């Protein structure tokens, strides 16, 4: 099942991206997708659909919470926000990502 495997690789990354995005303020699924794309200057093309299983999973972990309210254009939308637990998790994940990126940099820097 090739698609499943690629979401596996994405998973950790996608989680930290979602958490980071939500740390800037509550947002709905579409908003999160737009934001990631915008901030990463379109480098990170999130497969929009795969966002939702990830959101569901994060909510199950208790890192984000959700509520329905009306959107900017007056539609009902499901908004996600970071919980306290989620904030701590973001720090852990950010740290982990930094160390990972540094490690990869170090390896790539070998002459």
């Amino acid at each position, binding site marked *: 099942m090739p698609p499943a495997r690629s979401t596996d690789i994405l998973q950790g990354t996608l989680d930290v991206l979602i958490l980071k995005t939500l740390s800037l303020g509550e947002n*709905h*699924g*579409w908003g999160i997708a737009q934001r990631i794309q915008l901030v990463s200057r379109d480098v990170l093309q999130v497969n*929009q659909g*795969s966002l*939702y*299983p990830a959101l569901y999973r994060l909510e*199950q972990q208790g890192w984000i919470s959700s509520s329905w309210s009306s959107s900017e254009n007056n539609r009902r*939308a*499901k908004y996600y926000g970071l919980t306290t637990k989620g904030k701590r998790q973001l720090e852990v994940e950010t740290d982990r990502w930094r160390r990972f990126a540094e490690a990869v940099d170090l390896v790539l820097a070998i002459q």
Partner: protein
Amino acid sequence: MNWLPGESDKELDDEIRFHLEMETEKNRAAGMTDSEARRAALRAFGGVRRVQEEVRDLRPTRFIETLLRDVAYAWRTLRRSPAYAMTTIFTLALAVGVCTAMVTFVEAALFRPLPYAGLSRIMTIWETNFAAGEEKLEVSPANFLDWQRLASAFESLALAAPHGVDIPRGDRVISVGAGRISIDYFRTLGVAPIAGRTFEPDDYAPGAEPRVILSETFWRETYGGNRALVGRTIELDAKPTVVLGVVPDGLDASATFEVYMPLTLYPGEKASRTGHWMYAAGRLRQGVTVEGARRDMDRVARIIARENPATNEVLGVRLIPLREELLGRTERLLVALGGASVCLLLLACANIAALTLARGAARRRELAIRATLGARPGRIVRQLATESALLNLIAGIGAYAVAVGIIYQVSANTPEGLRRMHDVHPGAFTIGILLVFTLFATALSGILPAMRLVRSGLAKDLESSRRDTGLTGSEARLQGVLVVAQISIALLLLASAGLLIRSLQKLTANDLGFDPQNVATIQMYLYDLHPDAKERSEFVRTSLDAIRALPGVTGSGATSALPFNPATAARDDFEIVGRPERPGESRTIRTTAVTPGYFETMRVPLLAGRTFEESDRDTSRRVAIINQTAARRFWSGDSPVGSMIRVGIMGPPLEWTIVGVVNDTRESDYAKEPGPEVYVPVAQGGTRVGGLNYVARSPAPAALLDAMQVKIWELTPSQSIVEAELMERLVSRSLQAQRFALMVITGFGTVALLLASTGLFGLLTYMAARRRSEMGIRMALGATPGRIERLFVRRGLILASIGITAGLALSFLFTRVLATLLYQTSPFDSVAITSVVVMTAAVTLLASWIPARRIASLQPGTVLRID
């Protein structure tokens, strides 16, 4: 199932809808048309269904939810194809039920502990007579006493002498099998009493009051299992006897003892090396192997032979482990039948797998659509597996009913010689084993085809826009393999059945030496009520006359040893007066006392001289008749009539003049060649002719059975009757085990051939359907129907011949299991094998010819138009 999950389903749907609308709006704002914008939004999102599935899979209740949904779906699907569902349920219920019943029997008969401590060390001990070709003789007491003196392999040795005693039950006196046993008997067998105690030295003291130990069943049936009976007195042979204890049933490998009494050998018995009528057993010393014990007993036998050359020159000792003696026959039968049932189960699974594959092929489109709509392959396998699990669950319930039915039927009707097959009940073990078989069948018949179907690439099917619903090439190949497997298993079963039939034919073709039809028999012990020999033979004469006077009776007689009733046989050594024994010659002979009219009633042909007459009385000259084998072996060509022999007929040796020669009669079964036998008149036959079998011939023997007993009771109301049975039934009883195996295996074989040919038929029909248009074109181009027909028949025959070849190979490997059930029939018997191969070939030919014929008889135009 819309309670909780439904709520969050709707939430997710709303959320996704919102997402798509926002994306569409954004695209529109970027200048796309409405439809372009929507399509781009969907593309960016990926599969909506897939996302929904993925989110749903994350839910904790997901597993049960899916299961319930799958079950409901499976139920609907199966209701839409009742033929498939019923076939599967029926086939599996039958096969799993049969296997479950068989394993229940195997467990009950072979694996449950027997009441003996240290069973592997207990041997039954027999004598052999190599000069007479006797491989399993009962033991003579003097030889046993020498074993006790000389043998070193055994911790203890025990002796039992069979005996009959009368016990009142209700207002009748019944005769029960009793064992006079030596003091070490229960210790040797390692058996502890259920109640009370076993015998102690005091019980053997001369002048001790009579004491008895009861077997469990007898105690329950006669005394209602009353524990207070221990220590009390019952009436035994009209003497008050103290009940010492109760022991478990079935302790005796060869005779059935219902009660046990102390054995004190009479002086005459102590000296007897020629009368073989007792049973012996021994417990091996710690560390002594069976082989070691055999060597030891061979040594002992040689010492005894040196000391007593006249009697023991030709005698040897044979050890048979008690377990083998008790369960050997049952084990061999169960192994054969168990093997046949496993074959049947494999075959049923192959059949269902083929059906499931074929059905899967027909459902290909449905499954392909489900796959395209976002169902992942694992999901579809799971759905198909649920369907087959549901089927198997229903089949499992049916199988339980089948198993219970078989268990009760078989345990009620098992041949008597097969131990521990009689009191079998379905229990937790049966249910456990049923579950195992059901899971096995589910895996083999449901999940494998499902995986196979999915792996063959569902998505491709939809793309290739195939219209037909037939099998793909690789499925047809797999179907072919299944059909070949089915044919080979069917052939194996049929070959086994064929061998059993041949063996039975050969057995029953053996001349019995008498005519068992229309003969009624009753067995009695007369000694206790008629202790005086003269009075006794008078009673025999008047009672036989009374029976002869019954309506329809054409003849009556009596014998001390009835053919096919081995319990009554006796054997002794004899001398020919005036002719010393040649070296190596064994003058052991079966000794039987009969009345005038016996040979005539049994229709035993007289070959020379005369039969007995009423004038052969205790006062007249002692006369004897020998059988043909005795005449041939000891008089080799000369006429024995007029010769004198010296032999003890249940008494001291006396001289007899031979007055006739009669045909050999089989002793106890069809297979065993008759040995030498001598007959003397009951009226002259010593003092201890006590047990007699009355025979009477009538066109209505069943009615005669009752009439004979009534007549006896009219003369002596307290006379007990051991057994009343038709001679024909005694004879057929000896074939019960073979008949039983034959019936089961033939049944399985027939079902197997039916299933296999249905499989072949189905496969060819599918192939024909798939290649319809091709055939249409061929016909349009001038191929004759005969050619088309041959094309398919050839295909069927190729599969059939592979199957038959494989089946033959299997037969050569596995029919060896049957060897012990076969009589003068090699496992490679050409007649049996050839006829089975021909039959299988004929049936498979028919199964291929019908579909071939059907496709060939179509008009080319019709064929092409259908597509």
